[in-house]
């Protein structure tokens, strides 16, 4: 059975429609990358899954339950955790306090302070530092660690590489296998196609709120992706 089933959802920001009849299925343990240009609806999708936005049509089923209208703060205990765009680290809390807040509604599982520190040695070094005083790479690692603290079944990663130095991106991606090895399902949103292809079992390309390309990293060519990404060719639209 699929862990996540999204069935024909429409999502609006006020009057603006960001997703059109979007659907997908995600199996437990799978890593899916959603790629697409700015404004394609990627972050909207993650916000909808995390409960910050509610679909105006269609349903979202998670582990068999319809969660379309479950409030955001009740989704963590069901097993959905989001590392939001822009990391959103709590600035006046230390790194360790940020992690503890991430575990506020924690489910039983392998992730706790110790295992997060093992997976992210950089985070362990900065544990007493204030959230306001972190570099972009440090903040991203803390944001992922904070989401893991709830022991999610589904981890939503929004724009992990955005604004990071290449070496910091490599470090963050190096931690992904440790996350998926625990059976955590990962939904990854990226503008950086190369990184997405590296880690994903499957990828979907979004353009203006619709899926325009879907496949495994081996089955789709770079040209297909480029065309779908920018919406160049009519046959993909």
């Amino acid at each position, binding site marked *: 059975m699929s862990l996540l089933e999204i069935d024909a959802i429409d999502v609006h920001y006020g009057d603006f429609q960001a997703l059109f009849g979007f659907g997908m299925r995600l199996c437990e343990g799978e890593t899916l990358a959603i790629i697409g240009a700015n404004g394609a609806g990627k972050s909207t999708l993650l916000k909808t899954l995390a409960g*910050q936005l509610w679909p105006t049509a269609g349903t979202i089923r998670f582990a068999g339950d319809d969660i379309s209208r479950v409030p*955001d*703060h009740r989704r963590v205990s069901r097993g959905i955790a989001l590392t939001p765009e822009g990391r959103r680290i*709590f600035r006046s809390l230390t790194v360790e*306090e940020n992690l503890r*807040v991430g575990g506020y*509604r924690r489910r039983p599982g392998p992730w706790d302070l110790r295992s997060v520190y093992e997976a992210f040695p950089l985070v362990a070094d900065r544990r007493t530092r204030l959230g306001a005083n972190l570099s972009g790479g440090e903040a991203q690692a803390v944001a992922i660690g904070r989401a893991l603290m*709830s022991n999610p079944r589904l981890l939503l990663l929004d724009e992990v590489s955005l604004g990071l130095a290449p070496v910091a991106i490599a470090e963050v991606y190096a931690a992904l296998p440790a996350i998926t090895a625990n059976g955590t399902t990962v939904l990854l949103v990226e503008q950086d196609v190369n990184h997405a292809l590296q880690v994903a079992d499957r990828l979907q390309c979004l353009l203006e709120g619709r899926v325009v390309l879907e496949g495994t990293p081996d089955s789709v060519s770079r040209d297909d992706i480029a065309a779908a990404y920018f919406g160049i060719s009519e046959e993909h639209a």
Partner: protein
Amino acid sequence: MIWVNALVQGVLLGGLYALLAAGLSLMFGVMRIVNLAHGTLALGAAYLGYVLVDSTGVSPFVALVVVVPVMAVVGYTIQWGLLNRALAMGGLAPLLATFGVAIVLAQLLQETFSADSRTLQVGTIGIRSFSIGDDIFVGWLQLIILGAGIAVIVGLQLFLSRTGTGRAMRACSDDVETARLMGIDSRHMYAVAASLAIATVGLAGMFQGMRTQFAPASGDMLLIFAFEAVIIGGLGSLWGTLLGAVTLGVAQVVGAQVDPSYGVLIGHLVFLSVLAFRPTGLLPKMVTA
């Protein structure tokens, strides 16, 4: 020596202001609400204590056991039923809502209890004191109030820095959207913060009633003193609020020593000069809410 005595009396008065200001500081720190009903709610607690003492004959200290929890429930209810909705509207709505609560409550108190001044009789502890040397006198009640003020500030600080709920509250203060992503019910958390704030101001109101008189219209002055203590100390810092409260108390008592009519005025002048020369306050926000 009279100046040293004035200094000591000022610090003691600062204890009451710390109690009054702690909740104001907490509500501003956690949900950015300036609670204009703060002083009137303190009065409400004093009147509730008055009714209890009047009808059962217990000591006001015993009445605290009822008044403080009742005020905590009142705080939770006001936040949940009114201020959370006002926050969702944004802008000036929360400020106006608390202003409305202040007016309605003050009028209700006046309707019910008339405009006469009341006091809470605590017996001889209200007038007993001990002396240090020949010139310094410390009232027992004043000392108890100062102790309570310090205990409340230290307790709130420990709660915010050491407990899971306190951390969650600070997370809400930093970034409420992200706090909700962590599974924190921000509306409940706000209501808990308000319940703590109103419980502490209830304590302040009871003590104010024990040490002097109160009437339905005296809430405004309490609000102003609490507000000045928060600003002098620095917004969002509880230690700052304690320091600000003591500074205000000392300024008022030393001012009154210069000329009895100058007390409150000197307090206002200290407040204004902090605003002019050090607008972030004496101890600006460092780590916590």
